[in-house]
C-alpha cells in the first residue's frame, strides 16, 4: 500500500515537471499570418523542438495565446472571453502589422483596432507577415518570461555586497 502511494506520487511529480516545461498555445490567427504560423508548426521549423506543444483545440488547455490578423472592434469582447478562459500564467504573442497597429487599415475608416487596446501583449512580432524564425524567437522569449532563469552571477555579486556592508 505504501509502495503504491509512493510510486503514484513520484509519477505525479514527474508528470508535473514535464507539464511545467511545455507551453500549449491557442492560435487565434487569420489572414496571411496564419500561413506563417502553419509554417512554424510544420516540419521545416518544428516548434515542438522548443517545448511548445501543437495548437490546443480547447481554450482551457492553453496558456499562451497567439493573436494575428486584423481585429475588428466587434471582435474585442470575444477576445477578452478567450483570454479569461486560459489557464496558468497567461501570456499573449501578437503577430503581424495588422494586429499590432492596424497597419494600412488603421486610417482607412474601418474600425480596426490594435490588440494592445484589448489584451496585455507580452511579445510583439513585427513583419507583414513575420518570418517563421521570428515566431520561433518570440516563443523563446515567452519561455523566458514564463520561467525566468536564475542569474547566478548577479545573485553571487548581491550576496557579496551584502556581506561587505
Amino acid at each position: 500500500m505504501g509502495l503504491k502511494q509512493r510510486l503514484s506520487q513520484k509519477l505525479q511529480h514527474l508528470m508535473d515537471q514535464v507539464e511545467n516545461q511545455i507551453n500549449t498555445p491557442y492560435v487565434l490567427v487569420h489572414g496571411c499570418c496564419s500561413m506563417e504560423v502553419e509554417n512554424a508548426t510544420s516540419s521545416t521549423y518544428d516548434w515542438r523542438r522548443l517545448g511548445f506543444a501543437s495548437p490546443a483545440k480547447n481554450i482551457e488547455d492553453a496558456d499562451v495565446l497567439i493573436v494575428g490578423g486584423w481585429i475588428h472592434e466587434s471582435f474585442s469582447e470575444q477576445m477578452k472571453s478567450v483570454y479569461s478562459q486560459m489557464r496558468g500564467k497567461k501570456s499573449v504573442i501578437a503577430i503581424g502589422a495588422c494586429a499590432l497597429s492596424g497597419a494600412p487599415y488603421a486610417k482607412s475608416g474601418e474600425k480596426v483596432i490594435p490588440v494592445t487596446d484589448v489584451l496585455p501583449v507580452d511579445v510583439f512580432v513585427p513583419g507583414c507577415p513575420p518570418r517563421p524564425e521570428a515566431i520561433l524567437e518570440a516563443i523563446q522569449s515567452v519561455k523566458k518570461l514564463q520561467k525566468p532563469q536564475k542569474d547566478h552571477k548577479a545573485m553571487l555579486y548581491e550576496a557579496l555586497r551584502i556581506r561587505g556592508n
Partner: protein
Amino acid sequence: MSVVKRPSSVSQWYLPGIFVGLYHTLKALLYNLSHRQKMQTLDYPEEKFEYSPRFKGTHVLTVKKDGAIRCTACMLCATNCPAQCITIIASEHEDPSVEKFPIAYEIDMLRCVFCGFCEEACPVDAVRMGPEWQIPGISGTNFVKGIDFLAFRSQLKGGISSVLDDQERHGQGI
C-alpha cells in the same frame, strides 16, 4: 434512386489503412535516421535558412562616400507609404551644395507592411529593403527606429554606400 453502400464488417476495422499509415511513418523515420544531412527540419538557433538576395527585410538608409546620409528629405517615400509609417523632419544643411537633409527619419516597425513602395519611390537610391527579417521584442521595446538603427546598425558594418553620388549626378547633368 441513390443506393448507399454500407461498409462491410471487415473494412469497418480499418486494418489495411492502419498498416499503410504505419508503413509510411516507419519508412520516413528510417530514411531520416540513415540520411541525417537530408533531413528537412532545421535546428533553428544554430542552423539558419538562407533567403534570396531579393528578400524584402528591414529598411536600410544608404550613405554617401563621406559617410553622411544619402537621403535628401524629398518626402516621396512618406507620401507613397500605404501604412503611413514614415516620418521625416527636414532641415537646411551648412554646405550650400546640399539642399536639405533629414535630421530625423523614423519608421514605425509595428505599422510597416514591408511592401517596398518606399524603395520604388526613392529617386536617389536612399532607402533599400535590407536582407534581415524583423526581430521580435517584449513589451516596452521601442519599435520606432531612427537613423542610428536604419543606417548604422551593427549588421551593416558602417553603412551601405549608394550607387550614385551628388557630384557625379551634377556632372552628368541630372
